[in-house]
């Protein structure tokens, strides 16, 4: 058989491919079905976020941060606004902080639902995808109630919020919590503990802890590798230190720690924790005016600030350099998906094509966040 001539096959996966989660292109080198090399090609959605920021005033940047990681607008806004407020030295009222936390956790649930749903779709199960979108729709209804937008909110402003919440929002949120708890179990039954799904994901794409830390991997992807690190607990930005919640890590219930299944299950359990935070926050919102601290004219001093937050995808940070003018001198967004994706070549070599799809899905990347 040794005379048989074989050659490696190069396959272009994307930019238009159902499971690249957007316009990512992966150049796969294949030996039969086995992947020997993965080269991600980015930039198909490079929308010049950083250049735009330099031309905008500080409050005007917020809508652009929305569009960065579009599944996760609230957390993007929060990260940017915290960085800007740090630079400006603004202290926001308690009420604002509470509402921000509630919004961000709701957004985290919505984002994780998309992650889980599309991951099921990658595995070939289309129904969980629609179930997740159905629940996500309920979260979007809540957002719509407070700010009128479904996807990109421009809700969290520098120094405050665009709108105050209504009592109706509070009751609806409580209803949602009641409704959603059993749904998490349902999703787990339908997908997470499905035998075929476990076969497909357990033991695939194992990301060791040291590699993950060295490569700057963060968020559920890092926790899937067993690192118990959550910026909400460890950095205590905003008012997260007031709430009692657990940091979920992959513990190898199925497969080995650091594989696709563990990365996935962290998301499934994080939704439960987000519900806990919302439950604690929703009853304790103090009275106040949400726009009292919004500055009339945003003109910070010369300086710079770097704030890291825990977005559903991982460590989202904004680095703002101010030169004392109305416009930021430079804004750099440290996007979690960008760093998470960079390990894909390392961990998917030696797996099959179908596994590469699963590994890519387990990072829960958003191309708007990678390319900016």
């Amino acid at each position, binding site marked *: 058989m040794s005379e048989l001539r074989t050659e490696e096959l190069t396959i272009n996966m994307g*930019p*238009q*491919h*159902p499971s690249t989660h*957007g*316009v990512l292109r992966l150049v796969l080198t294949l030996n039969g079905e086995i992947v020997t090399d993965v080269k991600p090609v980015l*930039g*198909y*959605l*490079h*929308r*010049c976020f950083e*250049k*735009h920021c*330099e*031309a905008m005033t500080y409050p005007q940047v917020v*809508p*652009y941060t929305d*569009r960065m990681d*579009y*599944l996760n607008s609230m957390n993007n806004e929060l990260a940017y606004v915290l960085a800007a407020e740090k630079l400006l030295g603004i202290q926001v009222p308690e009420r604002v902080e509470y509402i921000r936390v509630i919004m961000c956790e709701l957004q985290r649930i919505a984002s994780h639902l*998309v992650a889980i749903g599309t991951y099921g779709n990658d595995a070939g199960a289309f129904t969980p*995808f*629609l*179930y997740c*979108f*159905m629940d*996500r*729709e309920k979260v*979007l209804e809540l957002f719509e109630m407070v700010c009128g937008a*479904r*996807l*990109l909110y421009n809700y969290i402003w520098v120094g405050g919020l665009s709108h105050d919440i209504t009592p109706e929002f509070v009751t609806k949120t409580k209803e949602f919590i009641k409704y959603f708890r059993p749904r998490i179990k349902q999703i787990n039954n339908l997908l997470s503990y499905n035998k075929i799904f476990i076969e497909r994901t357990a033991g695939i794409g194992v990301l060791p802890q040291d590699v993950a830390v060295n490569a700057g991997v963060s968020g559920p992807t890092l926790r899937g590798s067993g690192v118990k690190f959550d910026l909400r607990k460890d950095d205590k930005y905003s008012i997260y230190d007031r709430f009692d919640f657990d940091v979920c890590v992959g513990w190898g219930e199925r497969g080995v720690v650091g594989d696709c299944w563990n990365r996935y299950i962290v998301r499934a359990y994080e939704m439960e924790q987000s519900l806990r935070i919302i439950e604690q926050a929703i009853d304790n919102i103090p009275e106040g005016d949400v726009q009292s601290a919004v500055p009339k004219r945003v003109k910070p001093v010369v300086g710079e600030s770097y704030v890291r937050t825990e977005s559903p995808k991982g460590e989202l940070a904004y680095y703002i350099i101010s030169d004392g003018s109305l416009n930021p001198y430079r804004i750099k967004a440290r996007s979690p998906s960008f760093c998470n994706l960079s390990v894909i070549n390392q961990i998917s070599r030696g797996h099959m094509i179908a596994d590469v799809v699963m590994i890519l899905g387990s990072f829960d990347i958003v*191309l*708007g966040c990678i*390319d900016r």
Partner: protein
Amino acid sequence: MGILNKLDISVEQFESGNIIITSMDKLLNWSRLSSMWQMFFGLACCAIEMMATSASHYDLDRFGIIPRPSPRHVDIILISGTVTLKMATRIKRLYDEMPAPKYILSMGSCANCGGPYWEHGYHVLKGIDRVIPVDVYVPGCPPRPEALLEGLIKLQDKIRNQSLAKHTA
């Protein structure tokens, strides 16, 4: 098979509509507008709204619109999101790969005209119509699912009024 290939050649011969052509028109247009298969293809933020529209809550399947991953199977392509210069050539190529008759729906401000990136977006194509022809524009950033549905119904209206006969002014 491939009747349209042949029809396209002979379209010029139908100087005016008669009863056969108009009933034929009706059938062909009806079939086209009620089975618009959509490309499983999303670009940016609008893609999420597109997915939400095809999910249970809004259900594009009611209109016979199902997503197909291969460009050869599809009739409409929803340009859902910002088109960058790097992506524009690929979209052109996807468009060329689609079999005729094909329709394009430009979803969202970015695809229409560059949206919020019109001024400083050095890498953003200011409107997909600079690369491929567009049938329906849906404004919004992103458009709500209802708006997208409205756009699709507008596209259906457009298809309904197509004719094999020569258009007389």
